[in-house]
């Protein structure tokens, strides 16, 4: 139905039409009942070692006090040589990393080159700064390219830092303690994996928002080893996900067979062309 109040086609991108209404509604409800976005309440960590980068994350996604997802994937694919851990609002980290991955694949198709980690970081920084922190994404981007092994952190307001090791999320303080104690330059692969695992484990133990399993992702020049889950939690419940019943579960008491009497009324033959 054509509206006479619409004078221009609505622009693409974010639409702020409901912002006034939402502000009025919040004032009406005194801020108690607005729906909360799904936060990841996470522990993520990353370490640069001799041959590449190791990223680790827990797998719990919380929605206020309820665990919304026990096997959430927090290490997102960016490009074959780069992965990104995301903490903060789950949807924001997902979409931002997906957009980043699409942009980088367009670039590599256009230019025939492998994307570098600094490019990803710059794209993220521009995108997040543009939205002044409204996109709640704390990202830990690690990758290997022709210039070496890099680990960068990007905050929601667009601040960037290049670090040899870092932990982020609500469990970052505990995880950082383990990392500070155990980190050395040029670690070996197994030591680096063990360091990341124990730091995420410390985060899980000390923070309510992190938990369940630990995912580890190892990125080297040769390729990527995404181990999901690297360590499963001891506290698993025994739910049978399959509720199909075996044939014979319901007892058959009586059986009555009534044959259907059909008589042929008309018969037509249509020849098929099989040339």
């Amino acid at each position: 139905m054509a509206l006479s109040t619409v004078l221009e086609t609505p622009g693409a991108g974010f639409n702020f039409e409901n912002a006034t209404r939402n502000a009025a509604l919040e004032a009406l409800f005194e801020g108690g009942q607005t729906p909360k976005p799904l936060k990841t309440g996470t522990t993520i960590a990353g370490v640069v070692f001799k041959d590449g980068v190791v990223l680790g994350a827990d797998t719990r996604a919380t929605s206020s006090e309820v665990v919304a997802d026990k096997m959430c994937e927090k290490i997102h694919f960016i490009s074959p040589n780069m992965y990104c851990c995301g903490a903060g609002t789950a949807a924001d980290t997902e979409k931002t990393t997906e957009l980043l991955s699409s942009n980088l694949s367009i670039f590599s198709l256009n230019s025939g080159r492998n994307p570098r980690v600094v490019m990803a970081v710059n794209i993220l920084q521009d995108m997040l700064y543009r939205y002044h922190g409204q996109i709640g994404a704390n990202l830990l981007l690690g990758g290997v390219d022709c210039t070496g092994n890099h680990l960068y952190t990007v905050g929601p307001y667009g601040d960037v830092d290049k670090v040899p090791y870092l932990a982020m999320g609500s469990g970052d303080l505990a995880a950082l303690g383990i990392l500070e104690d155990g980190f050395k330059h040029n670690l070996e692969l197994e030591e680096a994996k063990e360091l990341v695992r124990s730091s995420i484990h410390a985060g899980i133990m000390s923070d309510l928002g992190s938990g369940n399993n630990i995912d580890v992702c190892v990125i080297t020049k040769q390729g990527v080893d995404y181990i999901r889950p690297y360590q499963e939690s001891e506290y698993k419940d025994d739910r049978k996900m399959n509720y199909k019943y075996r044939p014979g579960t319901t007892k058959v008491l009586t059986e009555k067979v009534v044959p259907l009497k059909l008589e042929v009324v008309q018969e037509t033959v249509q020849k098929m062309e099989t040339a």
Partner: protein
Amino acid sequence: IRGLRSQLKDSVPVAGLCPQGAYGVQDSLRSGFTSVKNELLPSHPLELSEKNFQLNQDKMNFSTLRNIQGLHAPLKLQMEYRAARQIQRLPFLPSSNLALDTLRGSDECIGFEDVLCDPGQSEVMGEPHMMVEYKLGLL
């Protein structure tokens, strides 16, 4: 520090004179109660900066280009932009903006404007005559 004045919306309507709803009546369900504050200041911190984002980006880029390469560089580029911007369909039809996209480089990028609120799938449709009159400034 920006003053309040620089954050004002385009027009300064008096509350109640230009209600947002259909049939000329204030649509309380969608836009809330009438208040002068609602019509002057944007309620979302990003609203104004997003509306003018492309404009501000272009201004910044052109002024940097002018400082580095002299006046003619941005002048020539802007001439091309103006020519490309004129290749449009009528206001109520979707235009592909191919030339403009190529000049801007946005044919090689994906952003939120490609994913959210696709104008090809908008929920509202405008009256074609009104839209053309608005575009020509006859309204």
